[in-house]
């Protein structure tokens, strides 16, 4: 990166370290932090939307819709994450390619499954095998977002489903007495008040989501844990200008600090949100955040 780094063997101490920490590989490592943060930033709202949809479906009066919502919550919550990430993504990818194959290559006469192989016509490949590597990476990233959102959406749905039922009956009863319809009660009374009951559960989910980001590597996205392992492994002088021993401990220590710092910042922000949400509301949360939420009775404190 710097001109002085042209011959690393002559360097020592700090200048060696600066050159070492700015190799192309390390730059890729730093970018991977951006990938992880972007994944979290995109996944959280999408998962929340999945959760909201799931919770609304689960409390629907239409039986099939309710079964759908409850089924989604029960099935996705019950399947181990790692099985989900290994199986579901390959199935989703092949499903997309199969649909494109049906639409684009109606004249194809060979079977799609040949022994172990999954074969679709070249035009149906997703992304096309002639696409640049970054297109493959973007596609992999969105598969990851979708999978994370689906898994965490099920947990969020359960949290929101509980939160919607935790809004005091007296509140909805009053709304009904004013002549509001079921939809109006939901929109005007339940949704604005449920967040305070949902937030502790949702903040837990956010923390778990942060820590689940290393699962990205299972999906083929080169995340920070992959790079930490690759960069930290022993490097012999033949194959690098910067040979070193087993430095994985230092790289993982750095990741530890990153994750701890990130979860701590999240806690502070979530605390602020909690204070704002409970403003003027008769819950324990508005007085002291440490108290258990949801055990309060309706009425003045």
């Amino acid at each position: 990166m710097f001109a002085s780094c042209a011959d690393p063997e002559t360097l020592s101490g700090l200048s060696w370290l600066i050159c070492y920490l700015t190799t192309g590989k390390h730059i890729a490592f730093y970018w991977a932090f951006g990938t992880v943060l972007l994944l979290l930033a995109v996944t959280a709202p999408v998962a929340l939307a999945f959760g909201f949809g799931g919770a609304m479906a689960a409390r629907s009066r239409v039986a099939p819709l309710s079964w759908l919502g409850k089924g989604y919550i029960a099935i996705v919550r019950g399947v181990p994450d790692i099985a989900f990430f290994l199986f579901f993504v390959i199935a989703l990818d092949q499903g997309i390619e199969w649909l494109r194959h049906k639409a684009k290559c109606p004249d194809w006469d060979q079977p799609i499954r040949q022994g172990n192989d999954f074969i679709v016509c070249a035009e149906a490949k997703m992304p096309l095998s002639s696409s640049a590597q970054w297109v493959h990476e973007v596609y992999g990233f969105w598969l990851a977002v979708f999978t994370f959102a689906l898994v965490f959406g099920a947990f969020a749905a359960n949290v929101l489903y509980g939160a919607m039922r935790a809004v005091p009956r007296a509140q909805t009863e009053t709304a009904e007495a004013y002549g509001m319809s079921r939809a109006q009660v939901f929109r005007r009374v339940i949704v604005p008040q449920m967040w305070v009951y949902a937030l502790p559960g949702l903040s837990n989910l956010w923390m778990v989501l942060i820590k689940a980001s290393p699962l990205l590597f299972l999906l083929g996205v080169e995340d920070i844990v992959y790079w930490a392992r690759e960069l930290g492994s022993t490097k012999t002088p033949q194959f690098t200008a910067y040979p070193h021993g087993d430095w994985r401990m230092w790289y993982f220590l750095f990741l530890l600090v990153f994750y701890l710092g990130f979860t701590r910042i999240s806690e502070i922000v979530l605390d602020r949100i909690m204070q704002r949400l409970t403003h003027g509301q008769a819950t324990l949360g508005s007085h002291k955040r440490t108290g258990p939420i949801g055990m309060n009775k309706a009425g003045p404190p």
Partner: protein
Amino acid sequence: MKTLILTTAALALTAGAALAESHSQTVRLGTEGAYPPYNFLNDAGEVDGFEREVGDELCKRAELTCEWVTNDWDSIIPNLVSGNYDTIIAGMSITDERDEVIDFTQNYFPPAASAYVAPSEDVDLMSGVVSAQATTIQAGHVADSGAALLEFATPDEAVAAVRNGEADAVFADKDFLAPIVDASGGELMFVGEDVALGDGIGVGLRESDGELRETLDAAIQSMKDDGSLNELLVKWFGEETQTFE
């Protein structure tokens, strides 16, 4: 969510269509990127090593456009058969077990020796703890030898296990271990006899990809015939390495 998928699909389609016109066929080459000198990531983060040079030369001779992709060793075969890339060029020895699932070209690396490396001479290789990379021919050999097998996802972790005393010895390709032994300054050494395993290293392909297999087979043959493959072998593995006749 639907819009998300659609936008991605549209993005991939337009980008793909633009590229598809300029190249007739793109072959994606899958590798591990953690097995020097066969394949590794250099300081710039690009795939480098013996197999990088062989792969690039094969593509040139076969007039293919090639793209390198790295993938975890554990899932390198499943991702090939589900079509994420088209070949495996990752120091994968040709064995009967693998041949049942995927196809191989002729070997571009002669049947090579595997060796044990340990911190001292007096290690019991037949009943001690021996580390190896998971799902390799070396791991299979250790399991059959009667020693306790300790498997790791990457070859580097298998070596690290010996350094920190978790395993008595590591068993891997001799050409992979040689630079590590050289650089260890006497801390690690080869012990016991070398073991010949497998039928050499070939390019792994889907069984349904007969055409690509023939193309690459011909390209490997032409590299063997004009001696350029031997030059690369000597360049990356030293003067004493085995070469093709």
